[in-house]
């Protein structure tokens, strides 16, 4: 770098951390959503913390497949 600009660098870090948070947020939401049972989404606002049905959901998708094809992707 050309000059030592401590506050500028700090500012850049803040912008980047916020930016990364926004960019990664949709993927985070998808991962969180994959650990909830489908009823959660009918009950209210989407949770932002992992649920307890992750193992079950992935097991269903990978080894059994969904019986009701064409359902919304929840």
């Amino acid at each position, binding site marked *: *770098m*050309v*000059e030592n*600009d401590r506050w*500028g*660098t700090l500012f*850049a*870090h803040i*912008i*980047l951390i916020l*930016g*990364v948070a926004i*960019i*990664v*947020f*949709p*993927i985070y*939401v*998808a991962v969180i*959503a994959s650990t909830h049972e489908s009823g959660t*989404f*009918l009950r*209210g*606002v*989407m949770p*932002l913390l992992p649920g307890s049905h992750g193992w079950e959901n992935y097991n269903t998708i990978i080894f059994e497949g969904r019986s009701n094809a064409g359902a919304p*992707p929840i």
Partner: protein
Amino acid sequence: MQTKRMTFSSRWLPYALLAPQVIITLIFFVWPASQALWQSMLRQDPFGLRSTFVWFRNFERLFEEPHYLASMKTTLIFSISTTILSMSVALLFATMVNRMIRSRDSYTTFLVWPYAVAPAIAGVLWWFIFNPSVGILPYVLSGLGYDWNHRLDSGDAMILVVVAAAWKQISYNFLFFLAGLQSIPQSLIEAAAIDGASRTKRFWTIVFPLLSPTTFFLMVVNIVYAMFDTFGVIHATTEGGPAQATNILVYKVFRDGFVGNNLGSSAAQSVILMAIVIVLTVVQFRWIERRVNY
């Protein structure tokens, strides 16, 4: 330009070497394109049993139809806002990351994630977040007093598709901008700094003009992306609605052809789109390469 002159021992060898490329172009481009051209001059009855040759009547009808002109305007708004949003955000991130030394790679890794997501999946992810009944963003926005509903409000729907399409493209633009920034000679920036130019001044008078080839290249790529590759985003989120507010040209081709069963009009629209692509490509290869020099 220097060219190497090759001599082949057999007369047929060069043709044989060219054949795969020519055959692929013929089968996957020329044949379908000519089919579309032919189809665009036919007109089917509603049941698809008969078709009559009508010359350019399909095109005439298209340009008389207010929906088609509205769709052109929608496409223009959509592609320009997607391009500006994704490019400006990517440029901001790229300049910030370019200042970092140790943390550069970790930020880059995170910012490149969306590139691995298919357009339809990107649409579904943002549909999740913006969903008026379960989404997190309408919940936050209603706390701020804004009633978000992209099913009813055409402005909200447009914002949703623009955000989803731009989000997907930020990674690509970011990588190109970062590469462009790193190829700018450090000595120019140092010289300006010694002359007392501030960081902002250096960016707008040295870095930004030197980035212009990258910027122009990305602009064409982004416009082409927004106009032709965002079908999945639109189909997964708004399906062209509400009231045609997000019905871009590519989506209208699909709707008119496969939902409305108006194959002639749909083919005429694809022919127009093909003309637009050809114009954009010519612009990219001729005009831009000549105009951007420093």
